[in-house]
């Protein structure tokens, strides 16, 4: 079943008098339950693409269907609803609320979906348990290590049972050992049926995915199928 379907996505920014085409006709499709990486050097447009897929922004032109729903024309508040129900974000800089406890941070999406306190606590505890942080619930972000913070962020992404977990350079601020832990965790979540998209410039991180889209200059340069047995096949487009 197709989860994400984009057709000719363009995103153009006005930088003063100059027009910058960050995305130039991205067409891709992602199935439910897939683990996909979007790779590219900085300035390739991969973050812009992530923002569009994550419904944080809307394309200048083109169509984006999420769960067969056209989302490229939705209003701000409708996009907020989609972000709340369908998408869980994991950011490079964790983006946790500094004054709130781990539990409270994980509860945040549930607050905006109108769940009551009992439901919120129950769901947040379950999500923290899934990332092995059940014993750190009352800690604030500054009392947690980088890896633990990222796991809180992953718990927050999971908590509302979204269709899609979208991770933007999830290991960018972590050492290699912790990075591996986080990638294992994402892998585990993938095994339990979650759809995961990782945006990264790191080749090793991309290797955890089933499939990699290589982006350059706002276009898909090639699509790579990762064979976990060791061999990879690559298909170059255009």
């Amino acid at each position, binding site marked *: 079943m197709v989860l994400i379907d984009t057709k000719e996505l363009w995103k153009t920014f006005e930088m003063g008098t100059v027009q910058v085409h960050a995305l130039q006709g991205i067409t891709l499709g992602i199935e439910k339950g897939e683990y996909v990486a979007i790779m590219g050097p900085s300035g390739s447009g991969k973050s812009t693409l992530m*923002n569009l897929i*994550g419904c*944080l*922004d809307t394309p200048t032109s083109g169509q984006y269907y999420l769960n067969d729903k056209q989302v490229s024309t939705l209003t*701000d*508040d409708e996009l*907020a*609803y989609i*972000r*709340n*129900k369908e998408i869980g*974000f994991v*950011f490079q800089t964790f*983006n*946790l*609320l500094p*004054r709130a406890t781990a539990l409270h941070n994980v509860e*945040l*999406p549930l*607050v*905006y*979906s*109108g769940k*009551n306190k009992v439901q919120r606590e129950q769901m947040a505890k379950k999500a923290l348990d899934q990332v092995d942080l059940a014993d750190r619930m009352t800690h604030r972000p500054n009392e947690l290590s980088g890896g633990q913070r990222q796991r809180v962020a992953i718990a*927050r992404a999971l908590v*509302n049972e979204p269709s899609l977990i979208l991770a933007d350079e999830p290991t960018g601020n972590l050492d290699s050992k912790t990075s591996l832990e986080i990638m294992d965790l994402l892998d585990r979540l993938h095994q339990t049926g979650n759809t995961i998209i990782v945006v990264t410039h790191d080749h090793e991180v991309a290797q955890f995915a089933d499939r990699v889209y290589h982006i350059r200059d706002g276009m898909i340069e090639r699509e790579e199928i990762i064979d976990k047995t060791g061999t990879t096949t690559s298909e170059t487009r255009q």
Partner: protein
Amino acid sequence: MIFWEVFKMSAMALNANRLRGFLTLLGVIIGVTSVITIISALEGLSQSIRSELEALGPSTFIVTKFGIIRSEEEFLKAIKRRPLKYEHMEAIEEGCDLCQKVAVASHYRVETKHGTEKLRRVLVEGASAGIIDIVDTEVDQGRYFAAEEEHSRSRVAFIGYNIREELYPGVDPIGKWIKLNNIKYRIIGVAKEKGSTFDDNSDRFVSIPYTTFVKDFAYRNMGLSIYVKAASVEVLPEAMDQARAILRAYRHVPYDKDDDFGIVTADAIMAVINDITKVIRFGLIGISSIALVVGGIIIMNIMMVSVTERTREIGIRKSVGARQRDILLQFLYESLMLSLGGGIIGIAIGVFLGDILIGLIEMDMSPSAFAITIGLIISTGTGLFFGIYPAMKAARLQPVKALGYE
């Protein structure tokens, strides 16, 4: 449900910045304090004027040469009128069947003496014995003079509270002599303390029978006032009409001319005083509102800073599904809490200061529900008015830009 959650977030954010929050409150506190103090003081003032006027009962009216003067023009016209005389009172007494009691009073200022003590410019009132039934004067000691003493032109005096305190300290004045312009009067009674808003003279008077007053001070040929008590509050307007018709006929006022005398009631005096204090009220409230506007601008400024500081937080909230109105409410609650907090503190200080102020000028003070309501309304209004722009700015932030903000 979500409103309460958003409210809790706002409370947490404020709690994290308590000192800043408090400093932000100061402007509103000062603004609300000054508005409340002024309202309380003015309320107290008109309260005490009202209680003074209550001495003149609700069914009483006074006919005077001047009436209530509202302009210089009116004064210049009134000053040319013929004075009111004793016979006018008699005419009303005879002709006005809705008038229950009629009395006269005339006033003059003299020097009083007792022994070596001397008081200047004491108010001497020559009044009908019956005036005690019309104007509420409470007797502290002794009695008021009687009708017989008026008929016999006795030199008896009923003195004000302050006269006793100043001329007869520690002495029982009843039966003692008091000298008015070197004429001796025997003191037969002392009035209870009245207290006054405007001058100390309401307790510095000497009341003597009108006939005696005419005998001793007649060379002044002073006019008099006619005090009338109507049969009841209900018939007061008709009684006034009757008295007016009688006076016009007696004084031969042509039908196409205005009255050549004035009629005063407690209500009419109160109306004039209210007119005057209304102007003062709005003027003072207007001035103190400037502090409130400054307070509002401080809140707005701090909220703008807060929105900028918390841009990333706004981005995070939006990325997990906060809608524009969730963010708007969160920041609006914050500015409302600030201004309402300031308002409540300001009301408390204002009521307290109002009490002190009123204590200083010796007035009764009623804790004013009106002042408190006004305080709450203006502080809420300030919070909403000055909070809406920063809150809208926060709500409209683009999630991508907000998340990327460092």
